[in-house]
């Protein structure tokens, strides 16, 4: 008798989809934006991303091996993606030790202390970023700008992000017409010739990756589209009321982390709702909070905070926005 016959319950076949494949699809989707960041920031973007990735994987390995003494899961691709996404949300030229601290917070605190992949409530990369932002506000808001710096990593010229320029300008009483010469054009925003975190440069490259993820069915359109539409509608209303005080919706969508957040951060499978109805509610929440922070808050940008705040509501959303049960509230014809 050769190998024994296996008895198991149905189904006896499985789709080719695996968690690992989904992780690698996310990885491929990030390539265009990564290439843009290297083009804009040169070697410093490469260093930043490498440090974040290596330290995320290393921390996961060390903590699982020596602290938790559990199975090592560094090959599932999730730590790799956390590293890249963390790097994408940081300014180029950030001191290396800060990147390492951010990685430790992302992996150690936001992911593993909750139980590892699948159990974390908050997006690990965003927790890492926000921790750095509130701890080291000066370094975290020094944005090296422009392509002219791509050959050097020492003498970077720093400047504000487009959202920062607007926030500051409006605070000192300037009007949008006066500010419009200081901010990048729509085309520049699309291509990524602007200041900001390394991954949020080119809206076009990010859209490309986002569409790839939707086509590969790793994410659905619900979160990104709802979030961006909500932002456009809300900023649109303010802009229509007073175009001198508020930037137009297109600027709000293309500047800052809106596209990166909508396609790559808010859609994180683990920390977003599991039903389509829930996803819509979740994304509306993110859109509203982002706009409120951008227009009225102390920070020029609010995508990270908005996503983390809505992450906290995900269990609640999952409880109250369930799929419609088949046959619910249907009356029988038999009397």
């Amino acid at each position, binding site marked *: 008798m050769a190998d024994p016959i296996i008895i198991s*319950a149905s*189904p*006896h076949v499985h789709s080719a989809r695996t968690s690992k494949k989904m992780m690698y699809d996310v990885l491929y989707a990030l390539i265009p934006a990564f290439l843009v960041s290297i083009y804009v920031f040169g070697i410093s973007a490469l260093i930043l991303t490498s440090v974040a990735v290596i330290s995320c994987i290393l921390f996961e390995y060390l903590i699982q091996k020596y602290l938790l003494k559990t199975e090592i899961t560094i090959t599932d691709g999730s730590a790799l993606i956390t590293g890249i996404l963390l790097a994408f949300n940081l300014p180029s030229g950030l001191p290396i030790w800060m990147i390492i601290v951010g990685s430790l917070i992302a992996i150690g605190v936001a992911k593993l202390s909750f139980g590892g992949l699948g159990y974390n409530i908050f997006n690990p990369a965003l927790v890492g970023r926000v921790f750095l932002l509130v701890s080291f506000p000066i370094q975290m808001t020094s944005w090296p700008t422009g392509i002219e710096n791509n050959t050097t990593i020492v003498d970077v010229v720093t400047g504000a992000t487009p959202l920062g320029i607007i926030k500051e300008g409006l605070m000192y009483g300037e009007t949008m017409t006066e500010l419009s010469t200081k901010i990048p054009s729509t085309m520049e925003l699309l291509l990524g010739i602007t200041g900001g975190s390394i991954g949020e440069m080119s809206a076009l490259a990010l859209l490309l990756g986002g569409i790839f993820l939707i086509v590969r069915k790793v994410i659905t359109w619900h979160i990104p589209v709802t979030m961006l539409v909500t932002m456009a509608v809300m900023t649109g209303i303010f802009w229509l009321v007073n175009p001198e005080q508020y930037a137009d919706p297109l600027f709000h969508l293309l500047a800052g982390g809106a596209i990166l957040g909508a396609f790559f951060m808010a859609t994180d499978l683990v920390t977003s709702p599991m039903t389509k109805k829930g996803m819509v509610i979740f994304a509306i929440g993110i859109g509203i909070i982002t706009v409120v922070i951008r227009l009225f808050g102390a920070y020029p940008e609010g995508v990270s905070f908005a996503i983390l705040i809505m992450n906290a509501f995900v269990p609640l959303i999952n409880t109250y926005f369930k799929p419609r049960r088949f046959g619910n509230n249907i009356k029988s014809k038999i009397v």
Partner: protein
Amino acid sequence: MLKTFPKGGVHPEENKFTSSKAIKRMSAPKVVYVPIAQHIGIPSEIVVDRKDKVEIGQVVAKSGGFVSSNIHSPVAGTVTKLDMMVDTSGYKKQCIVIRTDQKNEANFEEPNFPLKKEITMNQKDILQHIKDSGIVGLGGATFPSHVKLDLKNDNHVDCLIINGVECEPYLTADHRLMLEKADEIIVGIQILMHALHIHEAVIGIENNKKDAVAVLKKAAKDDSRIKVAALKVKYPQGSEKQLIKAILKREVPKGGLPMDVGVIVHNVGTIFAIYQAVQYDQPLIERVVTVTGKKIENASNFWVKIGTPIKDLVEEVGGLPEGTRKIVNGGPMMGKAIKNTDVPVTKGTSGILVIDEEEASRQEAKNCIRCGQCVFVCPMGLEPHLLMNLSEKGLYERAASEDVMTCIECGSCSYVCPSHRPLLDYIRFGKSIVKKLNTAKN
């Protein structure tokens, strides 16, 4: 746009290798093993004894109650044993062992039933014949057909749906039957329409069987009451509730039956059995079985006598190939893995699927990454990840309030889970406990 059910579903690799293989007749085996529990409901009661001589089609076990069915001898021969034997369910069940009389020619003749269109029987007799002939749902559920047809207040049933979907990958038994017995199937439908005063019938067929759609449309062209609906290929469209939704857009209420929305659903195989029972007084003693697998060279469809050991079928296609690790009674999505090939073909055996090393073992289950795929594909609008969690933690009352009992066990959730979690295993377990709790309460 082809019709289909709106919520959930998956599209596994079809692998219908035997679509073009005409149904071959298996010769009667030397010995048949006839289990007395081949249907859902109460097992039948044995009415023969050791050493009894039996004829083809003679009742060997009679219906044990309302939801039960007669069982007939598939061969002429001698009862040699009344034995306990492992059947396709994996449990030991009582079984009638009959040795085929090699000299009796009736055992080896091909039954000759020319097309008989005229329906002469009255309604009462039709229903009685269906009951007496031991006909059960041949799609795999094996629910006694006469129970479905027992309409206490029949005036609200206005549509008969014929299930020719065959959404299970690999299986082609219904497909071949539709191609080869289209006229008989149409007469079978007319018989039921006549018996139940139904004036509309729709045959639902998935569009990967375009030839069957064409053949049945042609066969039904003289009867404007019978329509053929080509459906988009999507699993589990063969499930009654999904099929009714796809064809009529009617939704069976939670915990209800097709009758609640004025529909009766029968599988094409069942319809053919009804045709034979009513027109030729032929009880259900044989059925079409697809014997297939990726490594099976001579995979084909067969007319098989109930009680034939699966071993004989496997021999017919060239034996088990090297590296066989799993044998499934039925299709890959809902079929049952069996321990060996000694078990017999029963009324519910629509196919024998042989799976090799590559696909037989499950992959290791990983953490749930909360991707929501199981929720998206569930055709019943359930949350499989949640139901698994609740069953695993023993929170059965909550599982019940999350509608665990409405799960149709189609397996789409386990099929699609990227972390290979055994969702359906736990849901089945939860269902079994909830069922026990409910019985205890009443």
